[in-house]
């Protein structure tokens, strides 16, 4: 019997107060996305397994919730929204005018144990900007991420901004073999600076080149970091990555969002996937990122549409947690009036409730007659601001 009262591992309920806070944030995000010209799309919760594993290889497969359809094809619940949107863009929206600006807000599913700040089913909102590969597109995305976090009520947060091509360029500059590059990339992705330093020292590079590789995670700070980085790079790829960041930053200053930016050339989430600028958003006292995004110019090619792309996703539960940590409390459950009445007065009460609702009030009407004392107790219990009690006929 107790089993039917449980929910599966990695799922949760949102009770009214939690659901109201979630809805509030989602509405504000939807509004800011649409102000920037992004239109919402909704895709199925399940896709064919091959669609979701098309890009990024098979690394995601073990995290997917899978099932079979009646023809025994394997289906999976979407684990993020970039892939379904890529499918959409490469198929049904193939002939749309570029750039394509799309947004989403949905639950996604990943089977992993102990993911900090999220369950297996969690909520994401985000945008994708398809068809443009310049700094203006990236600046718009970063600015929108900043505005989104602000509109969600967060005051304290930072965006760490990096560029994948900077580190890639340093590796190519030193003519590292595929295997050597793979080891270095893996150490950076795993945040293992000890390993990065050990590999760099073991590669028979001249001291400057080894030091440059080792310094990647320390290139963190304000705009001056780009100059420090420039001195380390002796190749076109790294230098144009820095120019790209510099141009993005210039535009962010005009947007008025540059004060939230910290440069960090060690931020690299996935070398295979990202191809340009990359960022993560952090808030104090929350141990994991609130949002992340970047440029991924190769992914749509896997779906048969060669098209540059950039975008980001925000974790709704993590934003809710950050709000709590920052003491941001908004009375999201509107409970204006509890309307009760004496025996025989239901007709007047319904009319009164309709008037009040017309005037924009949230009104709960009692469904049985009550004494005034009972109504008062009820109003307290339900947490209404005000009570109206009708015991004589209104005109």
């Amino acid at each position, binding site marked *: 019997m107790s089993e039917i009262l449980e929910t599966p591992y990695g799922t949760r309920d949102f009770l009214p107060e939690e659901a109201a806070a979630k809805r509030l944030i989602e509405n504000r995000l939807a509004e800011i996305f649409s102000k920037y010209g992004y239109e919402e799309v909704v895709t199925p919760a399940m896709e064919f397994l091959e669609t979701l594993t098309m890009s990024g290889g098979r690394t995601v497969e073990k995290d997917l919730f899978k099932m079979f359809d009646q023809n025994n094809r394997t289906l999976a619940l979407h684990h993020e929204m970039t892939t379904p949107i890529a499918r959409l863009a490469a198929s049904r929206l193939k002939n749309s005018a570029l750039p394509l600006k799309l947004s989403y807000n949905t639950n996604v599913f990943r089977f992993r144990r102990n993911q900090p700040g999220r369950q297996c089913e969690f909520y994401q909102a985000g945008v994708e900007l398809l068809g443009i590969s310049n700094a203006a597109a990236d600046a718009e995305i970063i600015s929108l991420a900043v505005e989104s976090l602000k509109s969600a009520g967060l005051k*304290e947060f930072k965006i760490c901004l990096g560029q994948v091509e900077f580190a890639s360029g340093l590796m190519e500059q030193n003519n590292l073999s595929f295997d050597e590059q793979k080891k270095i990339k893996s150490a950076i992705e795993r945040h293992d600076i000890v390993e990065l330093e050990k590999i760099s020292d073991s590669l028979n590079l001249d001291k400057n080149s080894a030091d440059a590789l080792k310094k990647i*995670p*320390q290139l963190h700070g304000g705009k001056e970091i780009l100059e420090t980085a420039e001195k380390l790079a002796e190749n076109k790829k790294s230098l144009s990555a820095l120019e790209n960041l510099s141009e993005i930053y210039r535009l962010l200053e005009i947007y008025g969002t540059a004060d939230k930016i910290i440069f*960090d050339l060690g931020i690299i989430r996935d070398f295979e996937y990202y191809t340009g600028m990359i960022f993560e958003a952090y*808030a104090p*006292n929350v*141990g994991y990122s609130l949002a992340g995004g970047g440029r991924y110019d190769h992914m749509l090619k896997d779906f048969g549409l060669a098209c540059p792309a950039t975008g980001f996703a925000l974790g709704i539960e993590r934003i809710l947690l950050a709000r709590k940590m920052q003491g941001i409390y908004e009375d999201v459950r509107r409970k204006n009036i509890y309307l009760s009445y004496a025996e025989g007065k239901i007709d007047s009460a319904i009319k009164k409730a309709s008037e009040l609702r017309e005037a924009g009030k949230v009104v709960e009407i009692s469904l049985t007659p009550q004494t005034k004392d009972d109504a008062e107790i009820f109003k307290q219990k339900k947490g209404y601001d005000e009570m109206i009690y009708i015991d004589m006929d209104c005109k």
Partner: protein
Amino acid sequence: MTNDYITVALPKGKLFGLSAELLKKAGWTAEGLHEKSRKLIITNEESKLKFIITKTADVPTYVEYGAADIGIIGKDVILESQKDVYELLDLGFGKCHLMMAVHKDKKRPKLEDYSHTRVATKFPHIAEKFFSERGMQMEYIKLNGSIELGPIVGLSESIVDIVETGTTLRENNLEEIISIMDATARLIANRVSYKLKFDRINKLVVDLKKILVEQ
């Protein structure tokens, strides 16, 4: 940012003394910071530091969630915990050696000959990764202490465990057949703390590097 304290997680046991001593040399300490402290959080108001002392295996958890900004812990524990944290510095001390051992009368010619046997260990994740990379499937038996008892009482054919001097192995007629990894203590940091408190944490890394070179 409002929270300008840095919380440091230190493990109980043999790494504690060395860690506290090293941090002290870099000026990171607090009054009453010792392993037997009854206080759960030991604070240094002036230097804006907080120390927590936890069970060894819990250090990566505190750090991954950001309950501690940084911590000191063995590489073996980080790998086994599978937590996503920054590994900032190899501190060089706390050296240990993770290996596979069997009863010396029951040695088999090749490693592959142990496929599908039972292995007792405190490190099932590391062991599984090691064997599966060699195409071997094993039956892992998670124990929390006295691993060497496994083969003696017939619970397992082999063990995967840490050795320091090898005395325990010899006393129990066990013999190392293959080395899995060598581990030392690491300075680790929470992914967000490392970014939002970069200046202080990075200064600590630079200072510790200097101290370690001079030693």
